């Protein structure tokens, strides 16, 4: 009988690099894969082998994953994370400024990907991007009216000013 690891690995592989996998959805094409590396003995060992990741954005041929750009790495990580979620949902997911390196078009795709998972999990997203704020169902502002002391306010999207400052909100 296959171990749990083997089942998860195969499921994640399919959800990450498959034709309808998360990588192709987020990049609009290209190809990606995860595979096990042989151990010292030269064999692939389901109990010991490490995992290698391959990712090729559409039209590109990077030899190693390290050649990808900052934004491409962020999107590849999000795709892999979502693939793990599809295989084995966790009750919640916290993303702290994962959109920091993304251009506007990729922020848009990232926001879209969150909605594919709402039936399985819920997300807590920390961001400075206006577009990501718009994708949230509810926003909390954290400010420091007294220097050094955090206070939580509830905000609507239109109360977050153009300069990122939070206008009047309802105190907790």
């Amino acid at each position: 009988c296959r171990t749990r690891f083997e089942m998860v690995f195969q499921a994640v592989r399919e959800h990450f690099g498959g034709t309808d996998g998360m990588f192709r959805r987020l990049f609009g094409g290209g190809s990606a894969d995860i595979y096990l590396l042989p151990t010292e003995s030269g064999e692939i060992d389901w109990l010991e082998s490490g995992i290698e990741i391959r990712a090729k954005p559409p039209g590109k041929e990077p030899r190693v994953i390290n050649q990808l750009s900052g934004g491409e790495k962020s999107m590849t990580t999000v795709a892999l994370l979502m693939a793990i979620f599809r295989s084995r949902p966790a009750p919640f997911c916290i993303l702290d400024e994962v959109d920091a390196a993304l251009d506007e078009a990729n922020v848009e795709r990232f926001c879209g990907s969150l909605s594919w998972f709402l039936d399985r999990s819920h997300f807590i997203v920390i961001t400075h991007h206006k577009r990501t704020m718009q994708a949230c169902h509810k926003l909390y502002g954290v400010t420091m009216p007294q220097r050094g002391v955090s206070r939580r306010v509830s905000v609507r999207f239109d109360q977050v000013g153009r300069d990122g400052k939070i206008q009047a909100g309802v105190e907790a």
Partner: protein
Amino acid sequence: MRLSKVTLSGFKSFADHTEFHFDEGIIGIVGPNGCGKSNVVDAIKWVLGERSAKSLRGTAMADVIFAGSAVRKPAGSAAVTLCFDNPRLASGDARMHDPFATPGETRPAELDSPEIEIEWIDEAGAESGVVRRGAVRDRLLPVDTDSVDVTRRLWADGRSEYLINNRKVRLRDIKDLFFDTGIGTDGYGIIEQGKVAALLEANPAERRAVLEEAA
């Protein structure tokens, strides 16, 4: 088993009692630099059993206690509570909700997570009861209540306390409570600030460890 609420008090920059309700699909936390957004993430990791002060951006665990500011005195303790929904499942057997189970088939017994014991400690520090995972089959968390509160507290003198539904337990019990749920401090469910590419830049063995967490 959604995370429905986080309550912080005296934890890092949250000197005052503060609550975040997570009752929607996508909750955003926004605000200027340095105001305390990532401190909320640290608070959640801390309750889930994080033992390294460095991974909470401090040098000693006491660094999580509100250290005072220009106008406020330092707090005497830090406390964070996570509240999880834990409804009774219609199909009666928590294992049936497992994504590994093929519809119609019951899961092979050896895939079942090992028997877990949660030990409650009474005031005198003695063991006062044990809950076995097997005993609560129809809820995802092995505690027979519709919601489960998990609390961690730390005092300036170094004393610390873990609680499940207001009853004292040990750290091991909190880890056991979340065993096999995908939640854990090293889990794939929390991406910290600046660590987005960490999964790609990790070595092959570290990547395996993340997938093992999901298995």
